């Protein structure tokens, strides 16, 4: 209790006694005087006891009385504070003194109020609100003090302050413009907002937000966002806003009410996203452009398709035209040539002897003979020209019939030399050297046309060489291509003409007028190039005037150079000792080998087929296809035609010639116009219709191999043909298990109604007239698209 001052206690007790006496007297007086004072006192006592604040009566800074709440506040037991100095309230001397200094104020009748930290008995502190007043404005009569614990209040205030500070920091440092708006007037605007709109500090304060908008319409649109806000939602707007200087910028505007009450105002953030907007616009534009381009591409593809069809028609017309022109030109030419010859013979035989030594007449006879020779020579030249024009036209139109077969290089070179033997005989000054590397691989090609090339090149060499030699060299070059060089010691040509001489009607002028007229038709080299290109090879020339020229051609080899003695007939038989292919078609997934030089198409077909449950392998050219087929043992092959190294046509020929592979169905898929003549089992143009592609593949796979006919059910074919003509298409060869019937496009629905089941074969040129969806809808029907083969009658 710390009361080691017995004198003071005694004095206080005495005083207490005195006071009680005083109270008693007062009560008595109060009772007498209608008890008003006693009642007052009672009220005061009640207040003292029930107060939620701590109350103390203090004299000389010593607690004379303290209510329970005060003791509770400071953590003392009941009565414990009685007689205690108030110093125990304060955490430190300074705050004690500070309050002490306020006493002088109390003496003047003022009320002292202070919020401060106080200390509990256990030393912990709490925020309190302290207020005091002197009794009778006389300090000597003591003072009453009230202590309230305001810890919560204080903390809340602190928190608010903190939040306010934070908000202010956010407000000012935000990269968005932020405005507090009430009734569409800015109450506050942050620095960023001022910056965005180009206003000076404080300039926006109190301004209506109308200044944000370029026009009344957008102001109104933004105004409609307040309906959203009123519903408690956040509004988002993207629009153009106006800078103070009148310039516009793209912005994102978001607004939200404060405390979900529009009356409290709303907060708006403004973000300039002009750059982003421009980028987005650019992306959109690019996307539009891409879509546009795609559409255009699709359109032009369709257009191309149409053009292609038209061209094919035109091509046919051109072909027919050329054929009749050829006939029409030949007839008069035959007369000119034949009659000139007859005239010459008759003239020499019957008229020349009649000159009788007349020198003038003899001269005229010679002149006539010479002139007749000119007519003959020129008609021969015209004949060659017509032949070459026709050749070239046919090759270019893809109408040349190529007869591809394995060719032994050495054989075919000897043929060429034999064919040109006559020319060498006429020019004994020229020697011929032939150097053929032994064991050259086989090439696949049209022997007649390749011979034509070689003969043409040798002829040229002889034609333009007066003396020296012509060397023909055939070897396998470092790229594993067969290379044939024809080198002469003739007049040559300027190097800059090396390309031009392969153009039509181009012959090198040899830099002077030495050649009074071209010796050939001017088409020979153009034809050579076409033929070699078609075989997947290349032909070019090198020369220097008067230093001879070298014509070089390369052709792809069909087989690897044989290591064993050369196999006659071309294809080395495949030994099946180590990799006998047992193709089990009844189990597992059907296997398809996709052959195409375009990786995109390979992937596309592979994916498409894999999705359909096929096992797929791919090869990028005919040669790879052959070796892949041995290992992979496909049930079907899809074959592109135009490919490097070995084209599809050659590959098909080799597949057909191979005892092990000849049964594999091959579906030709190509963009080149004569795909139908390539020798596949079916053919489709590029790009194929996905559905038909799969259907055709399935059709071909259901087709059993021809050597197990006994186990096979008969397949019924319904072959469509053009009603006006005889069947335009017949299958190349159909086996015993096929039963083929013909029907016109118009008859087809009737035949289907009559219950036809099986394979409907549609020549590709009739495809457009047939409703494929109708056929697809019937599961008992299969559709096969056939290439068009002209019927010869």
């Amino acid at each position, binding site marked *: 209790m710390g009361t080691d001052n017995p004198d003071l206690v005694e004095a206080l007790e005495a005083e207490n006694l005195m006071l009680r006496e005083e109270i008693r007297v007062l009560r008595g007086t109060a009772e007498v005087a209608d008890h008003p004072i006693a009642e007052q006192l009672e009220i005061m006592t009640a207040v003292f006891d029930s107060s939620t604040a701590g109350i103390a009566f203090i004299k000389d800074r010593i607690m004379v009385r303290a209510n329970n709440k005060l003791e509770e506040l400071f953590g003392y037991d009941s009565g414990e504070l009685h007689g205690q100095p108030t110093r125990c309230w304060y955490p430190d001397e300074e705050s004690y003194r500070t309050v002490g200094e306020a006493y002088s104020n109390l003496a003047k009748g003022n009320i002292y109020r202070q919020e401060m930290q106080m200390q509990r008995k256990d030393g912990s502190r709490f925020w309190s609100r302290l207020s005091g007043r002197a009794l009778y404005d006389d300090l000597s009569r003591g003072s009453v003090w009230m202590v309230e614990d305001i810890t919560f209040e204080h903390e809340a205030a602190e928190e608010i302050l903190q939040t306010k500070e934070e908000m202010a920091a956010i407000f000012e440092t935000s990269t968005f413009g932020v405005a507090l708006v009430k009734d569409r007037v800015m109450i506050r605007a942050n620095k960023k907002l001022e910056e965005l709109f180009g206003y000076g500090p404080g300039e926006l304060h109190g301004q209506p937000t109308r200044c944000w908008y370029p026009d009344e319409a957008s102001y109104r649109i933004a105004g409609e966002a307040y309906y959203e806000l009123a519903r408690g939602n956040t509004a988002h707007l993207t629009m153009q806003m106006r800078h103070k200087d009148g310039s516009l910028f793209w912005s994102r505007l978001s607004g939200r009410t404060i405390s979900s009450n529009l009356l409290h105002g709303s907060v708006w953030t403004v973000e300039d996203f002009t750059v982003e907007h421009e980028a987005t616009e650019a992306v959109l534009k690019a996307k539009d452009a891409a879509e546009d381009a795609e559409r255009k591409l699709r359109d032009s593809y369709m257009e191309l398709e149409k053009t292609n069809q038209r061209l094919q028609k035109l091509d046919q017309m051109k072909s027919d035209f050329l054929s009749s022109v050829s006939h029409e030109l030949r007839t008069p*030419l*035959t007369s000119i040539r*034949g009659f000139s010859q007859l005239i010459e013979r008759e003239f020499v035989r019957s008229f020349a002897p009649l000159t009788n030594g007349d020198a003038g007449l003899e001269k005229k006879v010679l002149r006539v003979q010479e002139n007749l020779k000119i007519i003959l020579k020129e008609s021969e030249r015209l004949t060659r020209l017509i032949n070459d024009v026709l*050749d070239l036209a046919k090759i270019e139109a893809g109408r040349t019939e190529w007869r591809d077969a394995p060719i032994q290089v050495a054989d075919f070179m000897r043929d060429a030399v034999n064919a040109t033997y006559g020319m060498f005989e006429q020019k004994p000054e020229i020697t011929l050297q032939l150097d053929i590397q032994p064991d050259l691989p086989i090439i696949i090609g049209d022997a007649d046309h390749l011979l034509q090339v070689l003969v043409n090149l040798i002829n040229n060499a002889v034609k333009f060489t007066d003396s020296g030699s012509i060397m023909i060299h055939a070897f396998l070059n470092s790229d594993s291509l067969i290379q044939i060089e024809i080198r002469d010691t003739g007049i040559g040509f300027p190097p800059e003409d090396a390309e031009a001489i392969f153009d039509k009607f181009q012959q090198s002028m040899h830099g002077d007028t030495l050649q009074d007229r071209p010796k050939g038709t001017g088409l020979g080299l153009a034809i050579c190039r076409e033929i070699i290109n078609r075989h997947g090879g290349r032909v070019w020339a090198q020369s220097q005037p008067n230093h001879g020229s070298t014509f070089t051609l390369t052709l792809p080899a069909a087989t690897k150079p044989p290591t064993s003695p050369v196999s006659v007939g071309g294809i080395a038989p495949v030994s099946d000792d180590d990799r006998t292919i047992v193709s089990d078609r009844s189990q597992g997934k059907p296997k398809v080998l996709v052959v195409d030089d375009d990786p995109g198409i390979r992937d596309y077909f592979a994916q498409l087929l894999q999705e359909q449950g096929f096992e797929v392998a791919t090869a990028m050219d005919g040669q790879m296809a052959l070796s892949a087929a041995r290992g992979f043992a496909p049930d079907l092959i899809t074959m592109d035609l135009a490919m490097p190294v070995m084209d599809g046509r050659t590959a098909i020929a080799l597949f057909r010639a191979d005892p092990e592979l000849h049964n594999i169905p091959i579906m030709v898929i190509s963009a080149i116009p004569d795909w139908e003549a390539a020798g596949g089992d079916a053919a489709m143009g590029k790009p194929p219709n996905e559905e038909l592609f799969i259907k055709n593949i399935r059709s071909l796979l259901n087709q059993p191999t021809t050597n197990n006919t006994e186990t096979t059910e008969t397949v019924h074919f319904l072959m469509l043909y053009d009603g006006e003509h005889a069947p335009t298409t017949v299958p190349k060869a159909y086996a015993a298990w096929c039963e083929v019937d013909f029907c016109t496009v118009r008859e087809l629905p009737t035949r289907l109604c009559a219950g036809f089941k099986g394979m409907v074969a549609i020549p590709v040129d009739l495809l457009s007239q047939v409703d494929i969806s109708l056929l697809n809808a019937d599961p008992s029907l299969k559709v096969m698209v056939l290439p068009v083969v002209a019927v010869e009658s």
Partner: protein
Amino acid sequence: MFKTIVIVDDEVHIRALLEQTLEELEGEPRIFTAVNGVEGITLIERERANLVFLDVMMPLMNGYEVCAAVRGNPDLADTTIVMLTAKGQESDRTRGLEVGAHHFVTKPFDPDEIIALAQKILTVS
């Protein structure tokens, strides 16, 4: 015995050219000309021709048809047929062979070639 040659061509100059060329043959063969296939087949049958020069493209009846008709007549088994084709038409040759032609001469032809060929055929037959 005189040999008989029939020339079938719709072109008057070609007929004349062939006729004049063939006049130079040894053994003075009899030469007939026809301007179309129908006339041609009549002449060939009537004259039991040893040798026929036959154009392909003709009105009424083309060369193949004439050829096929000749081959279909057992009385004309000894008649040799030379077809006059246009160069570059390999299919002409193929079809000609199919219908039983023996030789092909490409237009424009060389009169010397015609004489050599005709001489050979007439000597053998």
